[in-house]
């Protein structure tokens, strides 16, 4: 190892620059993988025993509240809750955060990952004009329990205002702490007076089932209840439901994934260039070594070793930079990516990328050196 470090020190400027390039590339690679992971975070945070039922036409269409009793009666269903996407605007469009009008008691029972103090929970359940916000969204806007939060409706016209009754925390890192909940009853009463034709409607039903293994069977059982009705349903696991959102923007995700590999290829080219230059300068040394009786494996080890040490050192620093960078990015774009954390898989992939940059960059120079005969090498100009 020290031997290679001394080799690198022979041209510190060049190797240092290359190392810096690798630091940047590995950090960029790590960040891009984390962005892709963040996209899937919603699907990762789901539970296997929860099913989501929505209108079969598309999410824009609602389902009658009357379905509640019928879904409850399905054997194997232990609990049913429901929610509407509220889609209000807080002050202006830039302050986006997800808002749902839910049936609070069953919803909170079904999502134990939203951790909430008992007194706040009771206060929220009791107040039909109350609201519950995630820790991150409350911090973002500086809300405290008791504050009044005005929202301008886009889907449900008019101005709405809610009193913040509680702030929940996530039970683990995976839990989304940017959501905002209000009472479905509040919304419904308001619709009854203003737009009666849209009242008594539910966006999605969330169903808890007794055993996750029965998900497929129970999904079909629920959908069968409403076949050939005016509002046919589509029931799937919560994970499949979340993944269907990811799938809609899949093209962008694929592009980001491709680009994360492009940066590795760019740095491979830069690294290969550096190694090629080092090797070119030392052609006579290698030829001398070979004339002294050192075989090709020794020469290969010399070139590959230097390349790998630069790549791995750069990779290690790059990875070390990724963590604080991700933390800052996550804090800044929390509304876009509620969960933004570097996964173990990303760490492994970044390490593998750095190592492969080291190996691939050494390949052509090694091949060229071995192809040069000893006498050619000895006679070459340094």
């Amino acid at each position, binding site marked *: 190892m020290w031997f290679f470090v001394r080799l690198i020190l022979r041209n510190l400027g060049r190797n240092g620059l290359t190392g810096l390039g690798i630091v940047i590339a590995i950090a960029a690679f790590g960040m891009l993988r984390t962005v892709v992971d963040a996209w899937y975070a919603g699907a990762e945070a789901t539970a296997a025993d929860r099913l989501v039922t929505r209108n079969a036409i598309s*999410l*824009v269409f609602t389902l009658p509240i009357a379905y509640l009793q019928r879904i409850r009666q399905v054997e194997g269903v232990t609990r049913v809750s429901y929610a509407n996407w509220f889609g209000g605007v807080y002050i202006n469009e830039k302050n986006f955060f997800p808002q749902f009008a839910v049936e609070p008691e069953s919803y909170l029972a079904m999502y134990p990952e939203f951790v909430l103090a008992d007194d706040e929970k009771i206060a929220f359940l009791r107040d039909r004009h109350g609201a519950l916000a995630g820790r991150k969204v409350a911090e973002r806007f500086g809300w405290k329990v008791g504050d009044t939060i005005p929202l301008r409706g886009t889907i449900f016209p008019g101005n709405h205002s809610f009193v913040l009754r509680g702030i929940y925390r996530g039970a683990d890192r995976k839990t989304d702490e940017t959501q905002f909940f209000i009472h479905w009853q509040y919304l419904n009463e308001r619709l009854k007076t203003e737009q009666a*034709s849209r009242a008594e409607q539910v966006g999605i039903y969330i169903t808890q089932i007794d055993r996750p293994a029965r998900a497929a069977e129970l999904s079909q059982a629920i959908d069968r209840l409403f076949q050939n009705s005016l509002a046919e349903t589509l029931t799937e696991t919560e994970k499949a439901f979340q993944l269907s959102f990811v*799938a809609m923007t*899949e093209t962008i995700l694929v592009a980001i994934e491709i680009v994360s590999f492009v940066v590795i290829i*760019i740095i491979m*080219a830069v690294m290969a260039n*550096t190694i*090629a230059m080092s090797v070119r300068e030392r052609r006579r040394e290698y030829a001398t070594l070979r004339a002294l009786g050192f075989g090709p494996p020794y020469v290969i080890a010399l070139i590959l070793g230097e390349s790998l040490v630069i790549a791995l050192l750069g990779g290690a620093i790059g990875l070390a930079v990724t963590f604080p960078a991700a933390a800052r990015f996550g804090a800044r774009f929390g509304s876009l990516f509620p969960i933004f954390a570097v996964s173990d898989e990303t760490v492994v992939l970044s390490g593998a990328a750095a190592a492969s940059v080291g190996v691939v960059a050494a390949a052509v120079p090694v091949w060229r050196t071995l192809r040069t005969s000893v006498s050619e090498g000895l006679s070459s100009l340094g």
Partner: protein
Amino acid sequence: MAVPLLYSWKNLWVRKLTTLLTAGGMALVVYVFSTALMLTEGLQQTLVATGSPDNILVIRRGSETEVQSSIDREQAAILTSLSEIALNADGRRRASREVLVLLGLPKNKTGVPSNVTIRGISRDGLELRPQLRMVAGRLFQPGSSEIIVGNKIAGAFRGTQLGGSVRFGLRDWAVVGVFDAGNTGFASEIWGDGEQLMQAFRRNSYSSVIGKLANPARFEAVKQRIESDPRLTVEVKRETQFYADQSEMLSNFLKILGITLSTIFSLGAIIGAVITMYGAVANRTREIGTLRALGFRRGSILIAFLLEAAFLGLIGGVLGVGMASLMQFVTISTMNWQTFSELAFTFTLTPAIGAKAMAFALAMGLLGGVLPAVRAARLDIIDSLRAA
């Protein structure tokens, strides 16, 4: 006296591997840079071209998209009889009451469902969109369960090919025609008879009203008049502006993502250029000494090496833009977050993007070449002639 251009150019070919690797790295950066701009451009052109500047689009106040909007029959009737709207040959106002809903349809290739926009139009709806023409089959019959599909999605979703059928709202809808709407958002939509679609979806209100202004210059006055009418709870936009607004979020996202990435990546490529150019200077120390001895000034040496770096950048730029221009044959289909529906658009290369990409490449080359060129220019004649 200047060092001949050819000197800088030919030096690049002396060390082909190094030049190729460095220019290749830059080419990839330029490729990422230009594809991001091309994608943004394609998206904007598609949505801007969707609207027509003479048309106004009316949606419910506070709703941002046609899908969220609802306009009841009474208000729609007031809107379609406004005197500011142009008349057609039969003396009817040139306006269309439209209903827009999203339908989750599985993609043919992957089976994964995505949201497709279905637009129900009134009889004058087609006339308001001159950019639209039928390319296969025929128009739907008013009052029937027939639909026509845009060329960008025809066949891409299950049942959307000519002669196919799509089931929703307890009915089978026959695909009787395919229309070409050029590079517009309409090309990703399904169209049918508005009243039939409203019945199928059990809704009693329209999503939007589109009308052709008799005098497009009076837009502001018309907007004022409609929005202050106490019978109406609507907002009025030019159709072009409405669609341009819909591209805002996605195109900003693509642009910021693309530019951030290419800036970070360009650091890597610049480092590559620095290494290459330092190498070039180190290898040619004696040559530089000779040039100086022949009477070339420090400034000429500086320029010769800067030019070499610039050429390096330009080679990378040409390769990168060349690769990116191939992307023009690719159509991207993804969800537009603002409308929650599928939209197809193509990578569009404009001369401005080409110029920006080349400038970017040149800047990378020059930035990488500055320090090495300065070192070359500062070499001492005697020392450099003595160098091994």
